[in-house]
């Protein structure tokens, strides 16, 4: 029973990270219909930026996170303006190839700037806490709480501000949004900024319990794709639910089935789902 709860908690904290990454991915897909394969690279660069300003400038963890959030948000906006925007009338194939180009560039860039070695991010939150008979590191608790706070902020922004509701409107109906006179460029920039910010936050939260290396984004982005397909491409609640579900499923899979194959759970899950329902679990949101 203890083991069960322990793994549940671990799974939820991993799931929090997945959720944050998947949220950005699903928003970009919902609004712009781009499967942003480069999103994982944003995540990876986010981790490195945090690490760098922590070690070189000696900034505090949370300050470094905010710094990284701004850097990656700008990076995402830059990729939108320089790459995706010029391609807005191009075929989906071109979008995907362009995304691959960005991904390859960022990964190589990380290797040039920071080397191919595995890096570790020091944390001042590595004490162990005991609650309800469970042992958790502070960092895992922080991940859980921070993710909820970030999602609450996002929810507030999307629901309670004009521009936020415009994003939602656009995600649900592009043409409709045009009719209402929403400036598509502003929405596009903002959506990318949010997705980049979420990726950076997720990376910063996850880094102290994982390793940092140039290819670290690949697995995460693939899992995020699985999540948003499970949750419905473009669906925000779907991404949240899917993210936590996958985190927990992996955690239990690693404990009760095999640690070696835990990364495969997501992909097998997806293959099964798409085999049974080729249009995803929640079709109809976007075409």
């Amino acid at each position, binding site marked *: 029973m203890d083991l069960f709860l322990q793994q549940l908690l671990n799974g939820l904290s991993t799931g929090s990270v997945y959720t944050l990454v998947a949220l950005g991915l699903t928003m970009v*897909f919902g609004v712009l*219909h781009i*499967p942003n394969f480069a999103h994982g690279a944003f995540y990876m660069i986010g981790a490195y930026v945090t690490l760098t300003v922590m070690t070189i400038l000696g900034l505090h963890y949370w300050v470094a996170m905010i710094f990284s959030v701004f850097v990656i948000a700008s990076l995402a906006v830059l990729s939108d303006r320089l*790459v995706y925007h*010029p*391609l807005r009338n*191009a075929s*989906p*194939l*071109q979008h*995907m*190839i*362009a995304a*691959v*180009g*960005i*991904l*390859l*560039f*960022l*990964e*190589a*860039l990380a*290797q*040039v700037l920071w080397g*191919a070695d595995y890096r570790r991010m020091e944390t001042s939150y590595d004490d162990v806490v005991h609650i309800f008979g469970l042992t958790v590191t502070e960092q895992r608790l922080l991940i859980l709480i921070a993710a909820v706070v970030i999602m609450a902020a996002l929810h507030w922004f999307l629901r309670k501000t004009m521009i936020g509701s415009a994003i939602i409107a656009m995600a649900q109906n592009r043409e409709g949004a045009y009719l209402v006179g929403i400036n598509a460029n502003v929405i596009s920039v903002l959506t990318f900024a949010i997705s980049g910010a979420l990726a950076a936050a997720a990376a910063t939260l996850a880094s102290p319990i994982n390793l940092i290396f140039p*290819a670290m984004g*690949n697995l995460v982005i*693939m899992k995020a*794709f*699985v999540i948003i*397909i499970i949750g419905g*491409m473009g669906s925000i609640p779907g991404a949240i639910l899917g993210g936590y579900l996958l985190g927990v499923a992996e955690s239990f899979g690693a404990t009760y089935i095999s640690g*070696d*194959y835990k*990364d*495969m759970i*997501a*992909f*097998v899950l*997806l*293959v099964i789902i*798409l*085999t049974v329902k*080729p*249009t*995803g679990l929640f079709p109809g949101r976007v075409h």
Partner: protein
Amino acid sequence: MDKVMNIRNGVILTFIITLLLPFIVQSQYVLHVVTMALIWAISVYGYNMNVGYVGSLSLAHVGFFAIGAYTLGLLTVKAGWNFWLAFMAALVLSAAIGFLVGLVSFRTKGHFFAIYTMCVGFIIYLIIDKWDSLTGGVRGLIGIPHPAPIGPLTFDTLTSQYYLVLFFLAVTILVAKRLLHSLLGRTFLAVNNSEELARAIGISTRKNQLLSFVISCFFAGLAGALYASFVRFIGPDIASIVLGFEMLMYLIIGGIGTLAGPLVGTLLMVWLTQSLQFLQDSRMVLFGPVLVLLVIFYPQGIVGGITNHWRKRRKRSDLKHSESKLPKQVPSHRVNARR
């Protein structure tokens, strides 16, 4: 007309050079690099026959390359099969798994297809990486034999291996060419252009997509098997998605959907990679943006661009002469390259 002759002469010249290459270049290293490039080219041709012809972007292509390589490797090293038997098995297995994967994955459309195949590719990678007892895991598989002799032909020298690879590349290009100019190839292009219209004129899109996918998996497997027997050591990284992206890049740069594109793109990029050795693994700092720029400004790639340019010029000169022309007759047989 003399333009056509130029192209034909160009092809013949290229062919002669490739035939004589082992005598022209003395460096074993160069010959080794060229042979590797030709193996990649086979795989890229296979890729083109799917993504370039029917237009569905599979991200599992490199997985089938690995399936070909590991099938050959495991059957020769662990099961002690005859080389050519294992070689055949590698091709058949790649195509067969491709068929099964395609059967399911073509139920999905567009982005879903790309993501689905990406997951399939990653599952293949994970199986190779984690199934230690079978594949050797990260340690890889060593001691794969060179191709066994066929009658008097032996393949234990670099030169002979070069010719073997060249032979298979020639076959691949022939298939790619015949296919492109056939009724089936036209059907593939129709599906690529508009699935809806294709179905309206009685074409089964699913069947054609599946067929082209299986063909591409077959050639990926062929390239993989050749790779394994040439390098004699294989590890899980030959199934990594990054290698798949690299093949995609060769294709885009050379010219997607074109006949010469895969060869031009692969040779150019391998050559660039060699000349930019000092960049090593960070060459993507350069190539990544190149890929992006190409997709934005020059999506037809080198060969596609040249063909377009050439066609426009011919058209202009046609117009000049057209006043004197007689009404056109139905040509008995036309070869067309649409892009």
